[in-house]
């Protein structure tokens, strides 16, 4: 696997091509090879624009390699080159790989802001390179099994990267999800809760947004609005810039979170406060507003609570923040106990979402998902998973097509596909009103009607009838 990030606005003079490269993995590849990957990518980006000026190059499929493209920011491209002979022999899901690129970029922006802004801050490119290298290396380490990178493959076709997995017990709470939540959720699953939950396991979160005026998104499990937002002090921006410059932070570094003295999770990734022993609270950027927020995490048993506090609202940095944390605990700890108790009672553990006889993935509006537990998916035959993986590619294409042809009207694709694969398994895809359902039924009977009936039952019971015919 190779992964590179390059900026088309840089290195346009002959002899300065190296300047384009912002990141390359593996870093020890000769420059000539790196440049050849980027040369091909750049060439095809230019070439495809002749015919498709609006939609950028997405993938180059060669016999032995796939190049997956993602234009992370305008003119800044991420390209992943997958060796098909080494990595899973069967076709990888290009869309799943693109989501990996998208995820690593979102996380980077969460902690460091956009790449472009960093490039503008320091035009030589040294700053961004020094940030990207450890960040992405840390990120990729999650895909390492032994010494091999295990990228998303057809085995993962009953999962959806980049979605928040909902707890059913959370239904009663108002749910509003946006990109930042997904990034935070990803981060929480990746790093904050490495032990409490296995990777990919379920968590529950919801975003509470107060009135637009106060612009305080608070991500917490505390439904009562009295706690956090009341304690916001609007004040000048207490910038921590000077501090940030001295050392590159590695927010994705493993095992660097622990419980601090105040009960909140703390990490030494961001260093410690001048002289004192307390660690610096990390600051994250919101995607849309690029507003800077303190990231405070609190854990009670398997419950993780994340608070985002606008940097601009805290008067005197860490001191002010610890006051906020203290108040949160004073006002809300009892509620947290109760919620945790409620959740752990209501949550059926790993297999909570298992529906007997079904292997499924349900995606709502590309943001929220629910799926059969991975252990259950593993019982499926390889052929079934390959067939579903292929079917998902087809559906993605149809979805893309619907988007392209109806750009003005957001028309959701209505689609129903039931395939009886060679091994006799039914592989099913349904899309309706922004919801998608994918299913493998290995033990269904031979008839299409039976399979359709099973979907209908599932739809009525678990999807409030969205996929039912009438």
């Amino acid at each position, binding site marked *: 696997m190779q992964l590179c990030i390059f900026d088309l606005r840089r290195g346009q003079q002959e002899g300065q091509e190296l300047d384009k490269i912002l990141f390359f993995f593996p870093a020890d590849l000769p420059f000539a090879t790196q440049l*050849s990957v980027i040369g*091909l990518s750049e060439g095809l980006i230019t070439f495809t624009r*002749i015919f498709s000026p609006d*939609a950028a*190059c997405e993938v180059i499929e060669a016999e032995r390699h796939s190049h997956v493209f993602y234009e992370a920011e305008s003119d800044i491209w991420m390209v992943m080159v997958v060796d098909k002979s080494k990595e899973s022999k069967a076709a990888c899901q290009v869309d799943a790989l693109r989501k990996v690129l998208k995820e690593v970029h979102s996380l980077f922006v969460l902690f460091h802001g956009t790449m472009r802004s960093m490039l503008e801050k320091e035009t030589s490119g040294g700053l961004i390179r020094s940030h990207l290298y450890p960040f992405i290396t840390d990120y990729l380490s999650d895909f390492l099994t032994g010494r091999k990178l295990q990228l998303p493959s057809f085995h993962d076709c009953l999962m959806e990267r980049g979605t928040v997995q909902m707890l059913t017990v959370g239904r009663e709470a108002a749910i509003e999800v946006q990109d930042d939540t997904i990034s935070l959720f990803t981060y929480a699953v990746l790093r904050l809760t490495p032990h409490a939950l296995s990777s990919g396991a379920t968590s529950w979160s919801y975003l509470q947004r107060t009135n637009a005026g106060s612009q305080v998104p608070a991500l917490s499990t505390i439904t009562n609005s009295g706690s956090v937002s009341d304690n916001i002090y609007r004040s000048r921006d207490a910038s921590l810039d000077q501090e940030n410059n001295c050392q590159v932070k590695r927010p994705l570094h493993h095992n660097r979170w622990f419980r601090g003295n105040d009960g909140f999770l703390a990490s030494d990734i961001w260093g410690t406060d001048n002289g004192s022993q307390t660690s610096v609270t990390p600051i994250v950027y919101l995607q849309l507003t690029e507003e800077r927020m303190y990231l405070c995490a609190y854990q009670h048993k398997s419950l993780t609570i994340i608070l985002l506090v606008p940097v601009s609202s805290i008067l005197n940095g860490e001191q002010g923040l610890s006051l906020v944390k203290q108040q949160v605990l004073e006002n809300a700890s009892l509620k947290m106990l109760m919620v945790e108790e409620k959740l752990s009672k209501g949550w059926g553990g790993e297999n909570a979402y298992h529906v007997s006889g079904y292997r499924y993935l349900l995606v709502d509006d590309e943001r929220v998902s629910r799926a059969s537990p991975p252990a259950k998916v593993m019982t499926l035959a390889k052929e079934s998973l390959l067939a579903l993986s*292929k079917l998902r590619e087809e559906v993605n294409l149809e979805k893309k*097509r619907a988007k392209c042809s109806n750009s003005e009207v957001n028309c959701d694709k209505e689609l129903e596909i039931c395939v009886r694969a060679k091994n006799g398994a039914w592989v099913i895809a349904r899309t309706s009103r922004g919801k998608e359902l994918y299913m493998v039924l290995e033990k269904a009977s031979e008839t299409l*009607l039976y399979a359709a009936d099973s979907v209908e039952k599932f739809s009525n019971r678990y999807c409030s009838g969205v996929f039912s015919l009438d």
Partner: protein
Amino acid sequence: MSSSDSSSSSASDDPNPKLKPQPLESQFQSSLTLEDSDGVARTDDASVAEQQQEQQDEGSGNGSVDGVVNVEDNGHRDSSDREEGIGSGEARDGDGGSGGGGGVVWRRANSEVELEVEAPASPSSSGYAGGRGSSGASSASRADDASEEDEIEVVGNDDGGAVGAPDSQAEWTPGKRHVDEDDASISWRKRKKHFFILSNSGKPIYSRYGDEHKLAGFSATLQAIISFVENGGDRVKYVKAGMHQVVFLVKGPIYLVCISCTEEPFESLVAQLELVYGQMILILTKSLNRCFEKNPKFDMTPLLGGTDVVFSALIHSFSWNPAAFLHAYACLPLPYATRQAAGAILQDVADSGVLFALLMCKHRVGTSLKVISLVGAQKASLHPDDMLLLGNFIMSSESFRQVTSESFSPICLPRYNPMAFLHAYVHYFDADTYLILLTTRSDAFYHLKDCRIRIETVLLKSNVLSEVQRSTLDGGMRVEDLSVDLQQHTGSTSRVEDKPHTETPERIRESSLVGLGGPAGLWHFLYRSVYLDQYVSSEFSSPINTHRQQKRLYRAYQKLYVSMHSKGIGPHKTQFRRDENYVLLCWVTPDFELYAAFDPLADKALAIKTCNKVCQWVKDVENEIFLLGASPFSW
């Protein structure tokens, strides 16, 4: 390949400097040492060779610059000359004294020899020249007002729905379009489906739209992409951007590229490129590779001169002829005895040294090819793709179509033997029905002529030709005729015969305008018999009555076919697919494949029942709709 006016060779000396792809070229070069792009700018060497080719052309072509020779009396002499040219191709390449190119041009010039024994010789108006020089311009202008094929990508264009004239397919005129365009034109960039053939040195050979000579720079870019990936020890298959796909196919020294935003799957597009390549092999044989071995900068365009029309007709057929993706051929529905009679006389002829004998007819809609009967000499079998390419070659070339004329032309069947020429004797009995006799012997013209006379006599005597005419008028299976009660059909020997003769013309006119659709919302079906390599397609019925709707259905079938035959995991057994346009049902078994289209609101259970009935119906009438037993595949 629009016009190979000899003087235009200098036009491509320097690629148009304002072409967009140029910077791209340099990008490739800047980051990696690329092969030199001599292919773009022709070197002096190449133009010298070209001149020699031209001279050679004139020298050997009996004065015909086009390389098409129409002969009356001296035809025999010429064709035996040709045999030499093919048999000892290499030797000839050498002794021509003008390099590999010259020799082959000579060969090609002669390979286009046509014997029009009965027709008056009119060198300027017949042969490929018609498709290329003179009528090239006129067909381009005609095309502008009529054909849908000139699709420029417009939002919603494809899904326009009910608008559009009924059956504009018949109005499609083959030939090169938009020769005035090149890659700098916006209209050219917006064409929905481009096809390119180029050599591995980047020389353009064919482009569906635009003038090849003006596309030299673009062609070099395609070559650069392919060789860049090749230099990395890999082979590029496709590139995707938005709804666009760029599909590559490398065949030795020949590169084929399709750029499309038609949403056809990659597998379909690459299969189409294979057919385009096959069509080229059919015209030239694979021995053209040797020319490239000798001279990598070899210019092939003169060899293919005038065959634009063949390629454009083939590409057009990718949008409506199911044979192109099913890899099967269709038969004209005929009473069993009639087909038997035709088969018997063809078999008779095959035993006398004819390799393949095919009696074909043109369907009333467009130029669809239907087989009346076909016979192969012992152990020889004809691949459906070869039949498609052969039929396309013959039907798209104006010169073959002169009724009662006979033509004798070298052709190669790429699936049968890509290295060698066969010789095709073609004769039209009437406007729609024609006979192809294939032989390995180049001097067999008079023998084949005799065979044809024998065949014709028998066909007339046994009323085969009139039955054929009646069947073309009647059309094939209609979904309306699928009765809900299956009993009515079992036992019925021939639907065609069920209908009173006198009513036929009215019936046709009526039903082709307002078919009502079949039971349970059945709109259309395709049935492919796996063992026979044959398929049958129902007549289009309401509401699939405009060309646009037919094309959309065709594309939906094509997608379904690819989905069912997914590489590595296929074939699947069944598929049910409902979207806003149709309910599609597909059923693949070791014996047959059924593709059926229903109203999108059709009931699942009823649709399944109806599919079963269709299969039963097809089995009941298979004697009439398929060519059984007598097929060469039974050996």
